[in-house]
């Protein structure tokens, strides 16, 4: 009897709780889910976070605005520019500082390069979760092109700190345009190839079409954001609905899909990469002239500001309160994947097969960190078996063979 048959036999009638997490090297941040399964079908899901809770919001209250800018970039290495932008634009608005148009264009370009590397990273992770390892290796190879751009021109692969209070510290030079354009054109061809694969490959479609469906109305009500929302036909993109630095001068095209399933989440993200490439090429050839920074005061006038930024995973929300000193009084951060986790817990997971969980979880691009990760299959009090994430992944692949 195979491992799969044994499990099917033992979990055929009763409800079992399957704890997943908190830790595994394949994922980017640790979280703990408990899926209650009835046989093969998931009937309930709960969540426990906090394994990497570092108290950044508390730490922000004890530092000045410049220090906090660098601190919040470390909330997440993947979307560090989005965090920096969301925070510093609160401070700039509170201080009544308007950053120069050229700085806005640089912020927008850096934001789109960040989206490219984040979506390519996700494409690899999600493909790996479903056992499509060639796709995983191809997409990560292509991601290196983006990482090289970041390293060569912004000085670092992840925490590139393009923002400074009142503007940016990197410029888009002629050298940048000459070197980056051919790389982006190559990446565009690669993205078109991936789009073709996910739309035509039979196995890939079998694992993604009609899996993890969440309707448009429900997505809207649950407050889902980013590609997760747009793949359910909700046209929610902060670059368009609440245009901020750069996107107010250079509008971007929105990508949506009405199919509401896992396949739509792949299509939306890949099409967004193509849009990002076209956007970067367009903006860097129309760069406004002028300064890169405006003068910022050290003390920020008392007040409150709420800003939303479209991070690669969705809406990143910052609420900053100033008490008129050099340090913020309160910095509240609502990260992009937190609200999308809610959609998994509330509705997406329920009614699906345990074997689909790796890809459904990957589908929202959850921000997990580099730690170990286990799955415990409970078979009553005295008979439990511990699975690694790798075994759950294999179980999912074997189930569909």
């Amino acid at each position, binding site marked *: 009897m195979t491992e799969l048959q044994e499990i099917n036999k033992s979990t055929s009638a009763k409800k079992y709780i399957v704890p997943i997490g908190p830790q595994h090297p394949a994922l980017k941040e640790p979280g703990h889910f408990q899926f209650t399964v009835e046989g093969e079908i998931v009937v309930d899901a709960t969540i426990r976070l906090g394994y990497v809770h570092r*108290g950044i919001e508390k730490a922000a209250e004890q530092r000045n605005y410049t220090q906090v800018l660098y601190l919040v970039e470390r909330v997440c290495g993947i979307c560090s520019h989005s965090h920096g932008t969301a925070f510093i634009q609160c401070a700039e608005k509170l201080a009544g500082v308007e950053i120069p148009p050229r700085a806005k264009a640089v912020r927008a370009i850096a934001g789109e390069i960040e989206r490219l590397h984040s979506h390519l990273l996700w494409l690899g992770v999600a493909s790996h979760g479903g056992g499509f390892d060639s796709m995983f290796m191809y997409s990560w190879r292509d991601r290196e092109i983006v990482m090289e751009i970041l390293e060569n021109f912004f000085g670092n692969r992840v925490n590139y700190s393009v923002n400074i209070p009142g503007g940016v510290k990197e410029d888009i030079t002629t050298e940048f345009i000459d070197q980056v354009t051919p790389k982006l054109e190559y990446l565009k061809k690669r993205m078109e190839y991936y789009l073709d694969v996910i739309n035509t490959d039979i196995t890939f479609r079998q694992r993604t079409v009609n899996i993890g469906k969440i309707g448009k109305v429900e997505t*809207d009500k649950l407050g889902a954001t980013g590609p997760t929302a747009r793949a359910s036909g909700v046209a929610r993109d902060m670059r368009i609905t609440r245009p901020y630095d750069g996107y107010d001068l250079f509008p971007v095209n929105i990508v949506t899909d009405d199919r509401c399933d896992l396949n739509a989440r792949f299509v939306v993200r890949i099409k967004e990469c193509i849009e990002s490439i076209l956007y970067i090429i367009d903006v860097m050839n129309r760069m406004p002239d002028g300064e890169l920074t405006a003068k910022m005061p050290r003390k920020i006038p008392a007040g409150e500001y709420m800003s939303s930024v479209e991070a690669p995973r969705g809406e990143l929300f910052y609420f900053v309160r100033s008490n008129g000193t050099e340090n913020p009084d309160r910095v509240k951060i609502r990260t992009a994947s937190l*609200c999308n986790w809610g*959609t998994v817990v509330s509705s997406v997971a329920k009614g699906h097969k345990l074997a689909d969980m790796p890809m459904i979880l990957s589908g929202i691009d959850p921000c997990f960190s580099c730690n170990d990760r286990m799955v415990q299959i409970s078979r009553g009090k005295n008979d439990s078996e511990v699975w690694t994430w790798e075994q759950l992944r294999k179980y999912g692949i074997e189930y569909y063979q």
Partner: protein
Amino acid sequence: MENMESINKFRELMAEFSQNIEIPAIQPSRIDAFINPADLVPAVKKLHDSDWGYLITISAYDTVDDQGTPQIGLVYHFGEREIIGSIRFFLPYDQLTIESICPVIPSATLYERECMELYGIDIIDTPDRSRLLIPDDWPEDVFPMRKSFISLDQSQPAENGENHD
């Protein structure tokens, strides 16, 4: 134009609950409705039933009133197109109890758990009271985001937010 409609609709919906509705000069795309804490659930339900926006998050902050008495400010942020509409109120330290909005918006559970753990707000009838962010062995009555909290080890207060232990 659409934005003005959203602002007017919010103002209209919140009129019966609000003690004060403000559009901050610094951020014209935002509208804040200050309500009585007892009206929280009906106010949220009204926004939800009228399809005004989606819940972005719930923010709490430790502050003082005009007399200098400590209180917790709570902000329920909703987003509709470009507009951020907030339902806000203050809870004095001796009455840190509110009702859960989860029966109306189930995904609020994560934000409510965060407010309970970090600020010690008692949210009645919230579906899940287990720890979300802070460790399981964290003391029951210590709320790390309050201004009074400096360090678990009071004999060695942390300097400039850095604890070198």
